[in-house]
């Protein structure tokens, strides 16, 4: 229990852990935390080692940087290397490896790649550089997609003709469904993502209990939030209930943010298919610009290689993203693949399971082994 002392408020943590232990009894449970932010909290605070041995957390696909396939990074680099283009991207994407290089290397090689905090910064760069073509590399789940949508609406209203978006926005429900449908997988429930749910609300998750008979509890990002959500999942199971519950109701509303959903529907439509790194093609799992915004769509404006590239053989990000293996079980973890020289995407983003484990988790695990606690 030594790690509990790190929490700002150890008393509720201890009582939640006792409750979890009591509810779990002698049975084994496996819950998936869908969101990379949760993975980060879990490793940062050594939560896995506080839980009773019978309660296991597995990491899910909710890291948007991690799921972008190599071919899309290659497309981004080819856009960045076009003469006259200013290519703008969130900092998280700069070190994600493509098949030959990453955006940082493209920048070092002379491409005008700039990292931005907000899509609005990219739009501003476009208005300040009317003689250049400015492309924004849009990534993220429903958390960031409304921001891209509002930026596109502004670009259209202000007729910023030299601005376009390379859209790689993905949606959270299809990968959850893909994981539920995968035949080799046993899960007892989900910790639902926090910030995505502020946009989509709780309704889209109802199919999880209704069709798959698995409970889902939307959780906040603090250690106590995670522990409470686990206790809520176990309580549902013990009471014979199977529902969508909201542990993070202080931020997430059941109906989500209707205005954000309306903006998404106005600007984007679902792609028939999109490739996810490690997970393969998932139907209707990503967004593209509607025809009304064709002029702002980098994929229609420019010729892109669009070549599908297989993940490196040594990299097991796919297994990590599906929760089949833990980061340290990957053959190249911490040796060939480190945050400084990542092979796989999970090692790039701070929300990637491998980077979070590399930076924080392994110390907790080593300490747990040393004191003879759960390893």
């Amino acid at each position, binding site marked *: 229990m030594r790690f509990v002392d790190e929490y700002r408020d150890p008393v509720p943590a201890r009582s939640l852990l006792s409750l979890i232990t009591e509810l779990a009894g002698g049975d084994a449970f496996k819950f998936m935390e869908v969101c990379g932010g949760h993975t980060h909290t879990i490793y940062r605070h050594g939560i896995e080692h506080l839980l009773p041995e019978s309660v296991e957390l597995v990491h899910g696909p909710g890291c*948007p940087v991690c799921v972008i396939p190599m071919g899309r990074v290659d497309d981004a680099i080819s856009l960045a290397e076009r003469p006259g283009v200013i290519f703008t991207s969130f900092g998280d994407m700069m070190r994600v490896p493509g098949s030959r290089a990453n955006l940082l290397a493209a920048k070092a090689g002379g491409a005008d790649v700039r990292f931005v905090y907000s899509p609005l910064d990219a739009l501003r760069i476009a208005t300040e550089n009317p003689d250049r073509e400015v492309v924004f590399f849009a990534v993220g789940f429903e958390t960031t997609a409304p921001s891209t949508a509002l930026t596109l609406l502004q670009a259209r209203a202000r007729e910023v003709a030299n601005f376009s978006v390379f859209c790689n926005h993905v949606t959270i429900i299809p990968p959850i469904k893909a994981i539920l449908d995968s035949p080799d997988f046993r899960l007892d429930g989900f910790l639902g993502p926090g910030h995505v749910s502020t946009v989509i609300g709780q309704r889209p998750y109802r199919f999880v209990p209704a069709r798959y008979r698995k409970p889902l509890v939307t959780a906040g990002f603090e250690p106590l939030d995670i522990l409470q959500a686990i206790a809520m999942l176990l309580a549902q199971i013990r009471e014979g209930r199977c529902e969508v519950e909201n542990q993070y109701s202080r931020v997430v509303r059941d109906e989500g943010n209707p205005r954000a959903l309306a903006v998404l529907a106005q600007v984007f439509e679902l792609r028939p298919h999109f490739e996810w790194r490690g997970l393969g093609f998932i139907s209707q799992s990503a967004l593209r610009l509607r025809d009304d915004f064709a002029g702002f769509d980098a994929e229609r404006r420019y010729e892109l290689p669009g070549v599908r590239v297989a993940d490196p053989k040594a990299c097991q990000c796919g297994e990590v993203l599906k929760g089949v293996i833990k980061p340290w079980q990957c053959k190249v973890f911490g040796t060939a693949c480190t945050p400084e020289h990542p092979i796989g995407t999970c090692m790039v983003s701070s929300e990637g399971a491998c980077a979070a484990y590399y930076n924080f988790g392994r110390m907790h695990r080593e300490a747990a082994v040393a004191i003879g606690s759960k390893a």
Partner: protein
Amino acid sequence: MCLGIPGQLVTLDGTNPHLAVAEVSGVRRTVNIGLLEDERLQPGDWVLIHVGFAMSKIDEKEAERALAGLRLMGRAYEDELESMKASLEGS
């Protein structure tokens, strides 16, 4: 990029109802509040900000909890703040 950072609204933009100035960890920047139009936000209100857009209204207690949690995240939070500051310099 996925991190929601709490900010407190300082002033609303008199000419554009979608814009407000928020203070985030001691830094002031313009944020877009268009997605929270229905909340009738006022100076002093707290919001969670993602990539320059306020995505949800929160209370002060939640803002404190979220900030404490973010500080514990270390580098990821520092990187996000840095990129936010860098984006201000260009504005």
